[in-house]
């Protein structure tokens, strides 16, 4: 094990467990970046939240006992900083061409550009999420949900710090410039948007937020898990710690959608109806609308994995920069040369599978791992519907539905996997994806409910509170 302390140093201006004070140059550079971060937080962070004391989880060390300490703090005082999981001095590269060699503590020159690109792309998603969610606090369905939103916000901010640390420490001047640029781009900005498409989409309401945290933060889980395998050890260690935080984000999404569904089913049973208009009139979100939101967020998120065939993916893998999900648990040669993988393409109006070199298909491999994980969760939502005795089931749309990236981009495809013409697409689009009317309806439900223990009418209370606190606990104290 390395000499890395497991406890955070909170006496430094920038809390860290990487002995920051021993590297004066780096410390000064990060201290110059820090006020820009706070300014960014004040400008585009959670709106109207400055004086709230929020029941937040903060890490005081990276061991199991220390990284989940709960208490009321102002978000602006959250201990953003730099936390790496403990290292293993003997760790070896376990995939790609450098298999068996010692992992790298510094960036090898030949991989510098690619690594920087990977870190910048990951880093860019973190402040983007905060920007996308900044208005949601004003329409929270409960104090419990408001607290969860704020917890996600501060952790996305910390994930940004994790990537900024890597850029500053390992990429010199380029890195510092990239770190500055992370605060200059803005989600949805016409002139200077975020790098990835999904992070420029609006998160207009809480159903969209729950879908985002279910699907898009799950993309985060898979990307971080792939990076946690990296031969660049500082990246592997920092993403490993980020994964433990990402879990909470997915929980908010999965349980959030589940609670919306539970409330809808309750209303359906009370009114003994499956008529969407009657359900809407009763203040709940009909299952068809939930399905359309699901279709949208799923399809936008699976685009985040990139093109189905990518020479970059092959290079990232072979050079040891980015592994597969659970690389260490897979039993193959971890080189993947000469192996193939099936990807989809459209030929003569039909979807067909074709074999492509595995190394070039690694985006698709990761996408398929994500899909499996997503589908399992959708099945858990279906259990809620099933328990309520309602015959409807939710499902993820076909992999080729509504894609904008890769070989399937631009192909008109129904959710059940039929290639359709432009006329049918235009006619059915509002059945398959949320319409402006859907957005308007969901928006109409978004009123602020923040009295402890009270919940908006379109969502059920959670099964249990955070950190085993009661559901009517004062999760946010408004200053």
């Amino acid at each position, binding site marked *: 094990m390395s000499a890395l302390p497991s406890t955070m140093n909170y006496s430094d201006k920038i809390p860290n467990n990487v002995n920051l004070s021993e590297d004066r140059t780096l410390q000064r550079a990060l201290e110059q970046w820090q006020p820009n971060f706070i300014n960014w937080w004040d400008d585009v962070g959670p709106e109207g939240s400055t004086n709230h004391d929020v029941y937040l989880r903060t890490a005081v060390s990276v061991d199991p006992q220390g*990284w*989940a300490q709960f208490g009321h703090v102002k978000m602006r005082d959250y201990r953003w900083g730099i936390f790496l999981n403990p290292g293993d001095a*003997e760790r*070896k590269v376990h995939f790609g061409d450098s298999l068996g060699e010692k992992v790298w503590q510094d960036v090898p020159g030949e991989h510098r550009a690619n690594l920087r690109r990977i870190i910048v792309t990951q880093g860019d998603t973190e402040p983007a999420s905060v920007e996308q969610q900044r208005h949601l606090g004003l329409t929270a369905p409960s104090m419990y949900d408001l607290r969860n939103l704020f917890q996600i916000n501060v952790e996305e901010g910390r994930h940004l710090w994790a990537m900024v640390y890597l850029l500053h420490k390992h990429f010199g001047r380029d890195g510092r410039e990239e770190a500055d640029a992370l605060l200059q781009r803005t989600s949805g900005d016409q002139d200077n948007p975020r790098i990835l498409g999904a992070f420029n989409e609006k998160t207009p309401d809480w159903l969209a937020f729950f879908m985002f945290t279910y699907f898009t933060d799950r993309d985060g889980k898979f990307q971080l898990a792939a990076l946690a395998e990296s031969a660049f050890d500082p990246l592997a260690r920092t993403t490993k710690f980020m*994964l433990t935080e990402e*879990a909470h984000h*997915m929980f908010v999404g999965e349980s959030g959608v589940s609670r919306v569904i539970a409330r809808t089913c309750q209303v359906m049973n009370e009114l003994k109806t499956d008529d969407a208009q009657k359900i809407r009139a009763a203040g709940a979100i009909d299952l068809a609308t939930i399905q359309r939101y699901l279709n949208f967020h799923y399809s936008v998120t699976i685009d985040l994995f990139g093109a189905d065939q990518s020479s970059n993916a092959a290079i990232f893998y072979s050079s040891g920069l980015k592994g597969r999900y659970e690389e260490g648990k897979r039993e193959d040669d971890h080189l993947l040369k000469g192996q193939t993988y099936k990807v989809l393409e459209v030929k003569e109006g039909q979807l067909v599978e074709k074999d492509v070199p595995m190394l070039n298909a690694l985006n698709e491999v990761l996408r398929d791992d994500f899909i499996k994980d997503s589908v399992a*969760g959708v099945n858990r939502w279906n259990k809620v519907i099933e328990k309520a005795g309602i015959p409807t089931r939710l499902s993820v749309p076909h992999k080729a539905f509504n894609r904008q990236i890769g070989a399937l981009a631009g192909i008109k495809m129904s959710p059940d996997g039929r290639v359709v013409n432009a006329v049918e697409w235009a006619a059915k689009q509002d059945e398959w994806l949320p319409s402006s009317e859907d957005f308007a309806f969901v928006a109409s439900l978004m009123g602020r409910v923040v009295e402890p223990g009270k919940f908006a009418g379109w969502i059920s209370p959670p099964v249990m509170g955070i950190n085993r606190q009661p559901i009517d606990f004062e999760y946010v104290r408004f200053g």
Partner: protein
Amino acid sequence: MDMAVEAGVINQHLIDPEICIRCNTCEAICPVNAITHDDNNYVVRADVCNGCMACISPCPTGSIDNWRKVLVTKAYSIEEQLSWEVLPAPLPEEQLVATPSLAAPATITPPVPAAAPAEAVFRSSDWGATVPPWSAARAFTNLYGPKNAVTATVVGNYNCTEAGFESETHHIVLDFGSMPFPVLEGQSIGVIPPGSDALGKPHVARQYSIASSRNGERPGYNNLALTVKRVTQDHQGNAVRGIASNYLCDAKVGDTVRVIGPFGHSFLMPNHPRSNIVMVCTGTGSAPMRAMTEWRRRLRASGKFEGGKLMLFFGARSQQELPYFGPLQSLPKDFIDIHLAYSRTPGAPKRYVQDLLHERAADLAELLRDGSTHIYVCGLKSMEEGVVLALRDVAEGAGLPWETLGATLKREGRLHLETY
């Protein structure tokens, strides 16, 4: 949280599948690798979880903090948990009263629902007990994990098979100095070989049964013995060097070894003075048998076990490959009834341990009728089914329906299977 067995009841750690979002945080954080998953559920291994609570606060959902009091014999298995859609309801108190075996240990109890219906495929593993004998001493488990492994010193290492043969098995003695490492016969320890595998990951621990008795290989010293076969081939006969076995067999006196454990809470010997022990083993499966025999031998000197019978069925490829052949021969015949089977003696028909069980059916049947008889099977997986089938034949030949007897043996912790 105390996971200790008290009056046969454990507080089993479970994950609520209705709340869990399968984020993997618990599995990643568990220091003893007690948590595992499939595509459906995340689950906790009851026999590995030590209730350290490291997984509790990092869980984002609260689903991890579920505990159910269950009889140790009916602890929810991994397979059961993987199939769950909801957590089972807590059991009412009256169902948590352990089956009283003290009352009538010498009789066979009335029929109970069998572990496997007669018409179903026979699975020998269904008959193995998960509960220790009622008179077993209390075992300590999981005192040391990979993160706080203890260092033991090699104080003895010799080939306990005949020298000059391709297959060699070593008797290795490890001393723990002043570090507490309390063990019982039938328990095992994990040895962590130094270095890392081809993928750069540190080697995982390999588990070995303890071959010495509770008061040490040398009585009164804090040491124990292992029986380790040097692995030079895999199961298909391809050349391969076993990582841990070669490391241990090559260890010199004075070398240090990283050890975790101890493990095992059911494959334990009975302590009541009239208990009979039937031991069936092959190769290094002899380790726990040696441990039990040695403890009985030491106790016998104090006159405490005159009534309890010992019967050993031991299989090997040849006499030369049979560990401890020499010392076995010197044990008094009135102390232990030994039967050896060789499967590869040139010019002689192949004989397996189950053949010996059939040959000694009359004596075995008498022991099977006795509620104080405990049966231990340890060795290669391939022998397990044959042995349990042979026990069934012996029982039925004596008019003891296996459905009844087998279920009783299992429930009372009197038939233990440990094969690999």
